[in-house]
């Protein structure tokens, strides 16, 4: 038992949230500094976890286990495998950059970032971050739900309080209800699994490593796979339950959008994988065609809807639906390529949307509009943000040399191995994506600066630039050197394939 790094990562944001709450509300910059310091700390730890994970050994590492409620077999059981380590890193990155871009600019003309009650904002955001970390590292089903819900409810407050005035109340409530419905449906499934395991083995345990061996009957798996998987997949933005997601993205303040699209949606996909597919493999095999259908529709439909949007955030929101559809598509293949791709895509998409939302937020804060037709000429004003957005766009359209390609390619290969027709249909989205991204970039960044925006739109701050550079480097680095992440994900995939019974 070494340094309990995973619990430190998980509880750092929560402790930081408490500390921030204790600070006097008028010490705004001190609050932010504490936030940044703890985010940096969490980032460094997650980087450390990522790089000291022993890929040769594979399996779950950095394991910590504390009995929490032995009577019901609940334990605080933490550990990461090749699937979750990249996601922990992603959370660290998004948290760090999210704090950076929320720092903002107190100049009354700009008023970028979070200027209203930053103390509460960071506290809630960090509570959310802690929950997210917790889900990724939990190996105990009960704790997974525990952290899952912690990650969900601060969203309501963050969106409703600091969101976009026009739709925030509606969007926040819609989002919360959707996610809550999904998670409790999954919860019932998890409880059913818990009791059936008890009947089968006589062991009361929420430990997922124990549950893997519970020997659920095929009928049971088939009956419960859909509620469990889809319940989580709601948060993953799976069609036809994706409706909350674009609304939520649009209404959320920038850092929350980053978290939401960058990390939270991964939470859904990850939990669906870990609980749905890994614990109910037979059910997964039985229903994979349905998941694949949903995902295939999401990919194309999301891209098409994104294409017709005029609000940048809606566009990115729907593009997230499309890209998360690819993740689901990868998961539904249940083979090595597809799952590997899904793992990498989760990371890639997380970084990419975080960047998209960051840049959109910077533009909105300064231009006070996100409508694509009303914008223009941003490249001259904020070249850094422009280049960042372009790189994000290239990732989004799966351009080789960037992380999106590295992720999407194996997914498509996996789909080829199972159902080639879906691969063909889903590939249409690539062209649609290229079209709307290019149109958007051209209009927003290169077209003439509209009259209305003359004068009062300025460049972004240094902190914003650091955030953009961090995110861009990750995307390009992963795109050029897939070896940085893919072998890691593969070790996780091997474990899943073992549960699926060879294949």
């Amino acid at each position, binding site marked *: 038992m070494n340094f309990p790094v995973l619990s430190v990562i998980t509880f750092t944001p929560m402790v930081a949230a408490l500390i921030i*709450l204790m600070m006097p*509300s008028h010490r705004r910059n001190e609050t932010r500094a504490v936030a940044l310091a703890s985010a940096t700390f969490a980032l460094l730890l997650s980087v450390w976890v990522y790089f000291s994970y022993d890929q040769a050994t594979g399996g779950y590492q950095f394991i910590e286990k504390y*009995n*929490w*409620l*032995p*009577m*019901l077999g609940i334990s605080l059981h933490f550990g990461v495998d090749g699937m979750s380590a990249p996601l922990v890193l992603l959370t660290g990155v998004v948290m760090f950059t999210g704090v950076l871009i929320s720092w903002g600019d107190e100049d009354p003309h700009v008023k970028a970032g979070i200027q209203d*009650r930053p*103390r*509460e904002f960071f506290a809630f955001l960090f509570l959310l971050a802690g929950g997210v970390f917790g889900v990724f590292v939990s190996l105990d089903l*009960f704790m997974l*739900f*525990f*952290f899952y*819900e*912690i990650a*969900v*409810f601060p969203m*309501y*407050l963050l969106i*409703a*309080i600091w969101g976009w005035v026009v739709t*925030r*109340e509606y969007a*926040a*409530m819609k989002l*919360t*209800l959707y996610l*809550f*419905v999904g998670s*409790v*449906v999954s*919860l*019932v499934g998890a*409880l*059913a699994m*818990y*009791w059936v395991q008890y009947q089968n083995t006589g062991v009361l345990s929420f430990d997922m490593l124990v549950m893997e061996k519970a020997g659920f009957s095929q009928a049971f798996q088939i009956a419960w796979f859909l509620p469990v998987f889809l319940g989580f997949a709601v948060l993953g933005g799976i069609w036809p339950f994706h409706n909350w997601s674009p609304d939520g993205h649009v209404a959320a303040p920038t850092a929350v959008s980053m978290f939401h699209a960058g990390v939270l949606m991964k939470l859904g996909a990850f939990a669906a994988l870990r609980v749905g597919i890994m614990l109910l493999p037979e059910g997964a095999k039985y229903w994979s065609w349905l998941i694949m259908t949903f995902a295939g529709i999401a990919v194309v439909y999301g891209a098409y809807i994104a294409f017709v949007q005029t609000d940048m955030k809606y566009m990115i929101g729907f593009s997230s639906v499309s890209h998360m559809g690819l993740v689901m598509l990868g998961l539904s293949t249940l083979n090595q390529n597809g799952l590997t791709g899904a793992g990498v895509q989760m990371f890639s998409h997380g970084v990419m949307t975080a960047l998209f939302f960051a840049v959109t937020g910077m533009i909105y804060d300064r231009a006070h509009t996100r409508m694509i037709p009303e914008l223009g000429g941003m490249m001259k004003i904020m070249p850094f943000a422009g280049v960042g957005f372009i790189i994000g766009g290239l990732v989004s359209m799966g351009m080789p040399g960037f992380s999106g390609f590295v992720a999407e390619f194996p997914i498509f290969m996996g789909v080829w191995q199972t159902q080639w027709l879906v691969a063909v249909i889903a590939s249409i989205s690539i062209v649609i994506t290229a079209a709307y991204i290019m149109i958007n970039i051209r209009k927003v960044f290169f077209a003439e600066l509209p009259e209305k925006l003359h004068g009062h739109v300025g460049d972004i701050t240094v902190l914003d630039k650091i955030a953009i550079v961090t995110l861009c480097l990750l995307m390009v680095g992963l795109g050029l050197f897939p070896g940085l992440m893919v072998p890691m994900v593969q070790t996780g995939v091997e474990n899943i394939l073992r549960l699926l019974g060879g294949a």
Partner: protein
Amino acid sequence: MFTTITFASILPEVLILLLAILIFIVEPFWKAEQRRNTGWLTAGGLLAAIVLSLLFGQPGEPQTTFGGMIRFDWLGFFFKLLFMFAGAATALLFMDNEKIGQRGEAYLLLLASLLGMNLMAVSADLVMLYLSIETTSIPLYVLSGFMLKDKKSTEAGFKYLLFGALASAFMLYGFSLVFGFTGTTNLYQLVEMFQVGSLSVAAAFGVLALILVGLGFKVSIVPFHFWAPDVYEGAPTPISGFLSTASKAAGFAVLVRLFFIAFPQFAASWTLTLAILSAITMTVGNLLTLQQTNIKRLLAYSSVAHAGYAMIGVVAFTKLGVTSVIFYLAAYILTNLLAFGVVMAFSRVSGVDEIKDFAGMSRRNPWLALMMLTAFLSLAGMPPFGGFVAKVFVFAAGVEAGYVWLVFVGIINSIIGVYYYLNVMKYVYLYRMPNEDEEKHPIPLTRPYALTLAVLAIGVILIGTVFAPWFGWSDAAALTLF
């Protein structure tokens, strides 16, 4: 035989009585403006009673004392501790309520009611049970109507009295029938007498229905809930808090003991009826809550719904079921007291209790807003607050017993719950006071409030994170029924 065990079995009650006498003596010597200190005295005394009971009054093997009147076991003991804690918190919340804070008799009535509740939790005999229920209820009738000049309060007291009396009459009738059929009033002997087959189904149904009416009134399950909103709204807020938590928990304590000890065989066949009642209670409670604009009425209806959730554990009719009910009640007592406490603290300064009046509260007192958030999210069943874990356990028990449909009803209801609880938080955090600068209207917290609310909030978080000890106690309590 009067042994140490006999004494230990009523140690908390004795201590409460001593405390009451002490207050009775001391209070008249205090000047009017000092009388609010009775609150400190009551709370301190109750806490001391809790500590002393824990030190000297812990039950060992379950025993029956006082000639079969009282059952000395963990189930009763754990509930007693909960009641006394709730009583202490309520006493502190009394203090700065201008209507009752300086009236010593309020504290005495509270203690009297507390005495009754304690006895409810341990009654092993129908006669004792009835007496303790009345001991609990009568002081509460008075307290509800305490503010004589306030029409709503008078109405609340009177309404509560009428409905309460009616319900007790039903229950008493049921008890008498039981005695008539079996010739005994002792719960633990009823089991043998009350075998299936020794009684016609219709008769058994009638008896149980009558008793259920009485208890249903106490725990406010639909359709015996309609007194609750009016009483909660009209009664002084600390009383509402006390009614909705301790009083309800006492009802559950009786319900659990009665059904598991006295009528286990019938109860097993009754679970479906209870399940339907539970489903209706949750649904009606939640749907009615949706329309409320007054915070106290909202909490009242939501407490109806919570009775429904807790019932799932009873319906499950397993050890985990009972454990989860007890755990649920423990978490619920803390949470709802916190919720009422926040409402009190707010209304004391602002003088209003409509939901819309909470606009801008987070700017007027961020800490109070955070505590309200804690309470409401816990009620909604979100981690890391007690409500989440409690709900999960109750649902787990439901799934274990095969009542998946009931759990799904519970889930749908929790979702409705999330909606209206968050809706309140929207006022607190999102909306602004119309045309006012919130900074100029702060909500200061007096010391008793700050202390109580902080303790409750920490308790709610503790029960939601470090839930093992609480669960252990609940489990020990449940174990005595099997």
